[in-house]
């Protein structure tokens, strides 16, 4: 009897070893502990990366084209008046517990996001749905008053307060992803724990050791499981970039972002440089001017400063990540992007023009110009950029620049309450449409408009663009808006468009998701 046990054990071990030999594992770094895996309340890129693997949206984005593509919804249609969107869902998608994914669960998720008691930071992106804001802001609205309906088990309908051509992007966002109501009601906040969670994506959560690692397994119940190549994703949570780099070089990680200090070495190394990818990211780095604070209330002064920034040298000698100089706000890859450099919108580096603008503003050779405060949040990277640009202002315009830094949240409070003359900020896309940029940031009513940029013409353009459905008309409206903000008014000085700087082992076949949320289900690992 004992022998049988031993034989059985050996047999299991051999099978196990054989099986393990065939398991394709991706060793990934999440960079930090995901603050939450609840799609209704997540706001950060780490959580959204994992949720992308665990939960399907009605729509998704194509990594190469940024176009909205079907995911849970096979197709969708918009009513004549542009107000009603109907999404037709697949009927073959199930949760990891075997129950079907239905339109009612989309409705539940949308209403849960909007429920004031949920405290969802991103609920405001859904305010465009009729009745949503009244419910979310506790202004007499109710859950029943929110115009999202399940017409049947696999059809969901949204009615909006105004036409919005970009709505299919919103419908795919994490705040709208169908969620397992019964599980959430049973476990409350603990529903995302590995032992409770029920998901419907290409991967399922196997193990979550907080601050240490997370293991995702290919989900056997995923509707398209045959196309998924990688069996498990082992996610580390390494915050220190140099440690992640060392682990990558030691072969413990399959992909990492090299720290700035290592960039010259990476580029010079024959092996590492072959593994390096620099791809466009969907973020813009900019310096805002407080349009209400003298002397920056004068557009000529703002134009002078915008013309005194040597973007290309900043990129070549300080940033070293092949970023692209920016003269307009919306970055490439976003619908509504206008190539300011090619079309002559905005202000390239031009010391002579900068001096002339300042002279026209009444400060020839910087005479009589008050000391300028340039503020950024405390960080080595921002500090290097501020030193470079501040020096550029001083050399070109002969003005005195006082560079100040503040801890992040103190800085945000300062920008909100008494924004300095020049402040640094960045913006990354939530969905690939200019509405997420010019309207959500620089509308005169926006809370992120620290520049106090206030142009009724600009507001009219971007609000019209939000309602318009013809892409050609919208693009033209955004061109006019960018020209107004970044050229005529020089309300801000865009500096550069970000890039993704990444090292990936040659045996990993991958895509890059500029919007965040890598599509691991499309990747593969070659024998190595």
């Amino acid at each position, binding site marked *: 009897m004992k022998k049988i046990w031993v034989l059985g054990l050996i047999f299991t071990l051999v099978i196990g070893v054989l099986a393990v030999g065939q398991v394709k594992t991706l060793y990934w770094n999440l960079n930090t502990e995901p603050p939450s895996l609840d799609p209704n309340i997540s706001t950060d890129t780490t959580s959204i990366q994992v949720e992308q693997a665990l939960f399907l949206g009605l729509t998704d984005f194509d990594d190469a084209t940024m176009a909205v593509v079907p995911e849970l919804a096979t197709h969708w249609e918009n009513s004549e008046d542009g107000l009603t969107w109907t999404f037709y869902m697949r009927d073959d998608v199930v949760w990891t517990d075997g129950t079907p994914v239905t339109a009612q669960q989309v409705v539940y998720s949308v209403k849960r996001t909007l429920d004031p008691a949920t405290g969802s930071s991103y609920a405001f992106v859904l305010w465009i749905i009729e009745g949503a804001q009244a419910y979310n802001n506790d202004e007499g609205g109710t859950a029943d008053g929110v115009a999202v309906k399940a017409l049947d088990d696999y059809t969901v309908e949204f009615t909006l307060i105004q036409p919005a051509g970009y709505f299919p992007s919103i419908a795919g966002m994490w705040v709208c992803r169908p969620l397992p109501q019964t599980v959430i009601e049973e476990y409350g906040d603990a529903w995302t724990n590995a032992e409770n969670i029920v998901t419907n994506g290409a991967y399922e959560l196997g193990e979550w050791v907080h*601050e240490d690692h997370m293991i995702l397994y290919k989900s056997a119940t995923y509707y398209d499981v045959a196309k998924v190549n990688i069996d498990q994703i082992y996610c580390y949570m390494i915050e220190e970039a140099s*440690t992640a780099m060392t682990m990558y070089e030691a072969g413990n990680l399959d992909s990492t972002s090299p720290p700035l200090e290592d960039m010259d070495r990476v580029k010079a190394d024959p092996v590492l440089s072959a593994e390096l990818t620099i791809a466009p990211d969907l973020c813009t780095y900019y310096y805002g001017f407080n349009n209400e604070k003298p002397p920056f209330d004068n557009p000529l002064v703002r134009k002078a400063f915008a013309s005194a920034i040597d973007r290309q040298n900043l990129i070549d000698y300080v940033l070293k990540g092949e970023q692209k100089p920016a003269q307009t706000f919306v970055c490439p890859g976003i619908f509504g992007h206008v190539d300011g450099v090619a079309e002559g919108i905005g202000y390239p580096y031009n010391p002579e023009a900068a001096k002339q603008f300042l002279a026209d503003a009444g400060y020839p050779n910087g005479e009589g110009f008050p000391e300028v405060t340039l503020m950024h949040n405390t960080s080595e990277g921002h500090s290097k950029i501020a030193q470079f640009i501040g020096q550029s202002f001083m050399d070109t315009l002969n003005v005195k620049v006082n560079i100040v830094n503040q801890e992040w949240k103190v800085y945000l409070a300062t920008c909100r309450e008494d924004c300095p003359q020049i402040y640094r900020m960045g*913006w990354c896309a939530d969905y690939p449409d200019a509405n997420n940029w010019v309207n*959500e940031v620089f509308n005169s009513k926006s809370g992120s408009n620290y520049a106090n940029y206030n142009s009724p013409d600009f507001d009219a353009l971007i609000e019209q663009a939000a309602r318009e459905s013809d892409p050609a008309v919208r693009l033209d409206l955004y061109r006019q808006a960018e020209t107004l903000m970044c050229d005529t008014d020089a309300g801000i000085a865009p500096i550069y468009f970000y890039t993704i700087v990444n090292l990936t082992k040659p045996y990993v076949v991958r895509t890059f998701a500029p919007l965040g949320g890598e599509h691991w289900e499309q990747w593969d690992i070659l024998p190595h």
Partner: protein
Amino acid sequence: MFEFVVRRILWVIPIILVVSSITFLLMHSIPGGPFDAEKALPQAIIDNLNAKYHLDDPLWKQYVDYMWGFMRFDLGPSIAYRSRTVNDILAQQWPVTGLLGLASFGIAVFFGIPLGVISAIKQNSLIDYGSMWISMLGLSIPNMAMGPLLIWIFALKLKWFPVATWGTPIHIVLPAITLGTAYMAMFARMTRASMLQVVREEYIQTARAKGVREIWVMLKHTLRNALIPVTTIAGPAFAGMMTGSMIVERIFAIPGIGKYYVTSVGNRDYPVIMATTLVFALAVVFMNMLVDISYGILDPRIRYN
């Protein structure tokens, strides 16, 4: 002694009240709140969040509610890690830090004190200079340099240890050395100085005159008394190690509590700031109590009244 311990434990109450109220006032007086972000949220959303975490209550009520929870070991939710409570965070992260702290303290004590003793016995010899040079080095190389250096030598080049992360006993070695060396150096120098002072006492001469063997003179009579100042710094040092080091944990990607001491302030994660501060305060108070008790064991002249 029992009475002494009880009295010391009762002293914890006013200490916790003072520490908690100062921390509470300080953290609410710094500008910025937990929901400030690069993408500024509409006021209505911030109102919802403030209501959810009761941050719209008057400050005194928030404080009273917090302390009422604290007394029942309910440390509240984390605002930044929304699916976890502060109890979860402490329960999952603190044991890791504790283990690392114990290992580091072990290294500091088992290497530091003998190093100091040998240096003192062989004063002004090559051994003395050598070990004091080592401890000077340990004190002066900061953790943020020592960690990567050890990783480079022992993980990347020699491949004896893993680069980083946590899980098996072998993962503890490099971070424990990194964290422990500075304390080891401190203990070594303290022990040496203290030994050299005690050795000049008259009772040591008496012991020698009575013909006690030199080794016993050193270990029984000198070291025992020389350990009193060492113990005084060992208590708070142990409390420090048990509550984590942000830098060492970050370099070695260790899932400890250390980072929460720093990130909770950056995140304005009020319940986590309170909990980590109070845990540290309790650790210091408790260790100082142990130090005071140990004085009596090391030096019979000290009584607890």
